[in-house]
Each structure stands twice: as C-alpha cells, then as structure tokens.
C-alpha cells in the first residue's frame, strides 16, 4: 500500500463519514469534507501529520456552490475541499492555525467574495483600493469586456 493510501485510510478512520469524497493521484490526495469538519481536518493534518506548509487556497464557483480548497503539503500533499453557500459565502479562517494563510484568504475575499470568520486583517489585497464593493471578478457572473475577439483589421 502506498503512503498516500495509508494516509487516506488513517484520515477515514479518524473522520469516518465526514470525508465525503476522495481521489488519489501521484503524491497528492484530494479530499472533500463537510464545512463543519473543514477546520478540524486541516488541524489534524497540520498538528498530527506535520503538513505545516500551506501551498495555497483556491476558490472556484461551481453550479450550486463555491468550492474552497486548502492545498497542504510538503512532499505528499493533501487538498482539502469544502463547499460554501453561493449567496452568503462564509467559512472559518485558517489564520490561527497557519499564519501564512492570511494572504491567500484575503485574495479569495477580493476575488470571490467569500467571508472568513476570525481573519485578523480582512483588508483588500489584490484589488485596487477604490474598487466598488460587492464586485468580485472571478465570479462567473462577472463579465469581461473583451470576451469577444477583437475586431480585426482584415485586408484593410
């Protein structure tokens, strides 16, 4: 049994049914957990398994919900996914656990409009300071002006 599989089995034995879905790749595990257990799973991985390095956090807007992924890991990595509500997205912040999460969470706050509970410094990071509030560029409802090809010069 490979190291990834044993790690996954251990996780499953600790959290049982709360791990909704799992996929194994080479040196990487994708987990899906319920939002209540998101913090606990990450805590388990950081404290018990020593995966102190948070690679990044990703937010994707899917059809019914917004998916937040915390990618943790050094040589073998675990990506912990969870779903938050699309209309009032809110999730607990990882900053107490991993101080380095601050900038990734601020980035998601700007671009996807997800609120993080307990974030120490919830300010704008990547968007300009005078950007209108409530507009989040990475939402699918946000349209760019140039999503059509530019008008070409042709044979002019």
């Amino acid at each position, binding site marked *: 049994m490979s190291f990834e599989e044993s790690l996954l089995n251990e996780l499953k034995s600790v959290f049982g049914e709360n791990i909704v879905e799992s996929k194994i790749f080479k040196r990487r595990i994708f987990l899906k957990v319920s939002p209540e257990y998101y913090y606990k799973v990450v805590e388990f991985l950081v404290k018990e398994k020593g995966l102190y390095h948070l690679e990044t956090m990703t937010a994707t807007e899917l059809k019914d919900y917004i998916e937040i992924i915390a990618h943790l890991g050094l040589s073998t990595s675990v990506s912990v996914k969870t779903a938050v509500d699309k209309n009032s997205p809110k999730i607990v912040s990882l900053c107490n656990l991993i101080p380095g999460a601050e900038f990734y969470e601020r980035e998601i706050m700007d671009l996807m409009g997800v609120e993080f509970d307990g974030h120490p410094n919830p300010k704008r990071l990547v968007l300009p300071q005078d950007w209108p509030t409530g507009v989040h560029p990475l939402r699918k409802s946000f349209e760019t002006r140039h999503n059509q*090809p*530019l008008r*070409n*010069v*042709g*044979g*002019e």
Partner: protein
Amino acid sequence: MEISITFGYHTVFDCEVDRVMSMLSELLKNLFKKRATVLYPEEKDKVHVPEGYRGKLEFYREKCIGCTLCYQVCPSYTIEIITDEKGKRPVFNLARCTYCGQCEDICPTKSIHLTKQFEIISLDKKDLVVK
C-alpha cells in the same frame, strides 16, 4: 594578508587586505578589457541573431491549404481568416502579434515562417499587415 593592531584584548585596528583585493584585481583587469556594450544602432553587424529566432512573420500563399489551425491557436487574435480566389487564407496583423510562434508550430504545410528580422517598427499600420 591581515594587518591588525591589538592592545591587550582589544583589537584597535584590523584590515584584511586580500578581502578587498579580489574585487580590486577584477576592477583593474576590466580596465583593459574591451567594453561589453554593443552600440546597437551604430554597430548593427555585431548583433548576433541565432538560427530559429522568432522575428517578423512570413507567409507563403502557395503552400497554404486553408485549414484555419493557426487561427485556432493564436492567443492574441492576430490572425483573421478571409476568403480569396484560392479559398480560405489567414491575414496577419503584426501589431497584435506576440511572436509566440504557435502558428508556425501547428501549420501542417509549413506555410508560416518566423524570420530572423527583429526590427519591425513602422510608421504605417499597413506595413504590419502580412498577406
């Protein structure tokens, strides 16, 4: 080499001469070297352009079969497909080109070629349209 003056336990003065020397000898060596700068507009012949440089684009109409693959991979909408007497063909607007070379790469008949010419500035927009 190290020069140091000590009174009891206190080093009053110390100077490691060879520490400075490694940089100084390099400086003096460079004094007699030829300059590294290429005075570009004056010394054009000194500018070395290697084989396979991705410069101004050339198009051979006779080879083109009108497959529009180049149009599909172009990231910056440089290419427009028009129809002439022989059928479909691309027209390139180099003002938008990023010289990534994807079209040259994907062309099945090698009718697109990026030349070694890197001076593409023009006062007229029309010079930048490759037909």
